[in-house]
C-alpha cells in the first residue's frame, strides 16, 4: 500500500470513530460552528466534532504542526477533504481566522505572533472579524481614514469600519489602519485588536434581505499594544491585497449556485413546477431559453474554474484570473436569482408567513442578498478595471 493509500485508510477509520453521527447530517439553522470565546452549541456534538478535529490540527489541515495545524501535504489534504465529503461531514469550524487571517499571519507575521494566534484559530477559541471597509471609502479601499497614532508603547486608534462580518459576535478584529497620512497606499498598517478593549463598539446593519450579517464598528481612542502590528509599519497594503485576492476567489464560487442554504434549486425544475410542463419541456418557451442561456454560462464558468485549477497545477496561471472569476461568478449568481424570481412568480416574492414554503421565502431573501455579491470584496467595476489594466494592459 502506498503512503497515501495508508493515509486514506487511517483517515477513514479515524473519521468513522471521531465524527459524531449527527455531524453527518445537513446543518440546521443556527448550527454554524463559529467557535469563539462565547460559542453557542445548539447541538453539543458540534463541540465534540470541533475538538476532535482540532486535536489533530485538521481544522487547518495544511498549516504547519508547530502552529497547531495538521501539517498535511496538499495530496493528504485532498484525501482528507474527499473522505469528509464521503461521509457528508459538516465543517468542524467556520472561521475567518482560518479562511483569511491565518494565511496572512503565516506569510507576514513574526514567529511570536504565529505561535500566539494560530493555535487559537485552529482550535476555534477566538472568533475573528475583518475591519477593512470604511463608510467613505467603498471601492477606494486604500482611501481609509481610521488612524493609528504612535503613542510610544501603543497605538491610539480612532475611526469607523463598516461591513465587518459578524463583528457583534467576534472576539478580535484584524484591521487596516492609517499610520501615515502623507501617502496613500504606503501609509497603511495591519493591526490586530481585541474587541473587548475600551472604545470598541459595534452596531449591526440591517440589510434589504432582512438579515444583519454585517456591522458598523466604531473605534474611539482605542489603545492597541505595538506588538499587535503584523508585518512592517506602513506595509499593510501588501497584506491587504493578498487577502482581497483570497476573498474574491471565495466569493466567485457563488456563481455555481452551490448547495448553500437558500440557493434555491435548479431553475429548470422550478420552472416545470411553477409554470408548467409540456412534452417534458418547460412550458414557457421564453423562460426556458432564458434558463438555458444562464445554464450554459454557468456550465462554461465551472469549466473555466476547473481549467484555471489545472493551469495553476501546471504552473501556467495568469494571476489576474481571480478578478475575472469574481466578476463573472457574482454576475451569474445575481442573474440566477432574477431567473428564479421570474420562474416562481408571486410565490418567489413572499416575505414571511405560512402562505409560502420555507424554500420560497429563502429564495426571496437570497435574491436580495445576492445583490451585494457584485459590491462586496471589490465591486464588479473594480474587477473590470483590474482586468483591463493587468490582463489587457490598457492604460489608466
Amino acid at each position, binding site marked *: 500500500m502506498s503512503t497515501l493509500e495508508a493515509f486514506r485508510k487511517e483517515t477513514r477509520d479515524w473519521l468513522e470513530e471521531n465524527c459524531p453521527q449527527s455531524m453527518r447530517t445537513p446543518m440546521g439553522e443556527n448550527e454554524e460552528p463559529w467557535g469563539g470565546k462565547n460559542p453557542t452549541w445548539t447541538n453539543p456534538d458540534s463541540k465534540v466534532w470541533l475538538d476532535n478535529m482540532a486535536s489533530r490540527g485538521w481544522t487547518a489541515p495544511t498549516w504547519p504542526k508547530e502552529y497547531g495545524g495538521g501539517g498535511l501535504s496538499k495530496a493528504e489534504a485532498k484525501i482528507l477533504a474527499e473522505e469528509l465529503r464521503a461521509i457528508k461531514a459538516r465543517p468542524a469550524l467556520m472561521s475567518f481566522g482560518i479562511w483569511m487571517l491565518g494565511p496572512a499571519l503565516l506569510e507576514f507575521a513574526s514567529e511570536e505572533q504565529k505561535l500566539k494566534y494560530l493555535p487559537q484559530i485552529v482550535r476555534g477559541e477566538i472568533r475573528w472579524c475583518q475591519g477593512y*471597509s470604511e463608510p467613505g471609502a*467603498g*471601492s*477606494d479601499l486604500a*482611501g481609509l481614514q481610521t488612524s493609528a497614532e504612535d503613542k510610544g508603547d501603543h497605538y491610539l486608534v480612532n475611526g469607523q469600519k*463598516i*461591513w465587518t462580518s459578524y463583528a457583534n459576535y467576534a472576539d478580535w478584529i484584524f484591521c487596516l489602519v492609517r499610520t501615515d497620512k502623507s501617502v496613500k497606499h504606503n501609509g497603511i498598517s495591519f493591526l490586530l485588536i481585541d474587541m473587548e478593549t475600551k472604545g470598541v463598539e459595534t452596531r449591526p*446593519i*440591517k*440589510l*434589504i434581505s*432582512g438579515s444583519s450579517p454585517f456591522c458598523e464598528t466604531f473605534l474611539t481612542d482605542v489603545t492597541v499594544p505595538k506588538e499587535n502590528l503584523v508585518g512592517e509599519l506602513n506595509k499593510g497594503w501588501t497584506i491587504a491585497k493578498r487577502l482581497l485576492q483570497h476573498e474574491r476567489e471565495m466569493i466567485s464560487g457563488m456563481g455555481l449556485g452551490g448547495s448553500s442554504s437558500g440557493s434555491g434549486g435548479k431553475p429548470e425544475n422550478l420552472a416545470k413546477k*411553477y*409554470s408548467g410542463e409540456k412534452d417534458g419541456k418547460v412550458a*414557457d418557451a*421564453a*423562460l426556458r431559453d432564458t434558463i438555458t442561456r444562464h445554464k450554459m454560462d454557468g456550465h462554461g464558468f465551472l469549466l473555466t474554474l476547473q481549467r484555471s485549477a489545472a493551469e495553476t497545477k501546471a504552473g501556467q496561471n495568469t494571476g489576474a484570473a481571480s478578478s475575472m472569476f469574481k466578476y463573472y461568478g457574482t454576475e451569474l449568481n*445575481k442573474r440566477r436569482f*432574477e431567473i428564479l*424570481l*421570474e420562474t*416562481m*412568480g*408571486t*410565490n*418567489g*416574492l*413572499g*416575505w*414571511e*408567513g*405560512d*402562505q*409560502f414554503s420555507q424554500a420560497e421565502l429563502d429564495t*426571496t431573501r437570497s435574491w*436580495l442578498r445576492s*445583490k*451585494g455579491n*457584485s*459590491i*462586496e470584496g471589490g*465591486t*464588479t*467595476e473594480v474587477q*473590470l478595471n483590474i482586468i483591463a489594466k493587468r490582463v489587457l494592459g490598457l492604460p489608466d
Partner: protein
Amino acid sequence: MALVLNEEQTLLNETAAQFFQEQVPISNLRKLRDDNDAFGIDRNIWKECANLGFAGVLISETYGGSSFGPIGLGLILEQSGKTLSATPFVSTVLLCGTAIQLAGNSTQRQEYLPAIAAGERICALALEERAHHNPTHIETTAIQTENGFTLNGTKTFVLDGHIADQLIVAARTSGATTDQHGITLFLVPAKSDGVSIERMQMADSRNAAKVTLTNVTVSDADVLGSVDGGSDVLDPVLDMGRIGLAAETLGLIQEVFDQTVAYLKERKQFGEVIGSFQALKHRAATMFAEIEVCRSIVLEALSALEEQRNDVPHLASLAKAKLGEVSRLVTNEGLQMHGGVGMTDEFDLGLFMKRARVAAATLGDANFHRDRYATLSNY
C-alpha cells in the same frame, strides 16, 4: 397620442405630486411595515385620496366620480409610484371599479361606485389561482343551485383581499379548466359564510391575501355581467390594471433613476465624483434612453384608454412588459451604483426594488406579455 398635458392635467399632476410627497412619503410605507400594521394601508390617507377625487378618477360624475379619466389616472399613479404609496388603488379603482362600471347593472353600480369614489369601500378581485398570472386558468367552481350558485375554490395573490369589504370572484360555470368561455364573475361580500381570508406577506410590504371559498352561496343577483361571459369583462379590466401598474412603475423608475444620478454627482471615490467615470456615465445614459421610451409607451397606452381605441390590449402588453424589464434594469443598476449603502434597509433602494418585482409579477410578467403581444400581432 395626447402627449402634451392640458391645463387641467398639469394641475392634477402637481396636486398629486404634492400630495404623495407630503402626505404619503416612503416613511409611510416603512411605518406600516415596521408596525406590522394589520390593515396594511393608512385608511385616512385613502380617504384623503378620495377627497382629492383620486379614488373616483375612472368613475363618472353620476356616481360621484371625478371623471379625470385615464390620463389623470396615469398622472396620479405615476406620482404615487415615486413614494411607494400603499393604497388600494389597483384592487379597488383599477380592477373592481372598472369591472362594476363595465358590467354592473344599475343596482350594482349604484351600490358600489359611489362608495368606491368616496374611499369608503375596498374591493378585491379574487382571480389568480397559481404563481403565474393566468386569467383563464380557473379551477374555482360555481355550481348552479335553485336560487343562485355555490362557490368552491382557492384564490391566491388577491390584492387587498384581507381588508376588502367586497370580493369579485372569478369562478367556472362551464367549460374546461383553461377555457376562455365559461368563467363568471360574482360579487361576494368578504364576510360571507364559507369565505376564509389569510393575509400573504409579500416582499413589497403591500397587501395580498389567500382566499378560500368553501360552499359559499350567492344569489343570481350577485352575478356581475353575464353567466359564462366573465372573460369579456376581465379582458378590459385587466388591461386597465396593467396600464395602471405600468404608470405606477414609471414613477418608481424615474425616482430611482433621479436618486441614482444625484448620487453619482455626489459620491466620491479615488478622489473623483463617480459620475465622472465613463462606464457609469454610459450606463446612466442608456437608462435615460430606456426611460424615455417607457414614458412614451405609458402615455400612449393611457391615451388609447382615453380614446377607447382597439389597440388597448396591444399597448397594455407593451407597457407591462417593457416597464417590467426596465424597472428591473434601473433598480439593479441603481443598487449597484449606490454600492454598499444600497444594500442597507435604512436606505430606500431595497424598497423600490421589492415593489418593482411584485408590480412586474402582478397581472402578467414580461414573458406573459411578450407572448401576448406577439399573439395579438398574429405571429
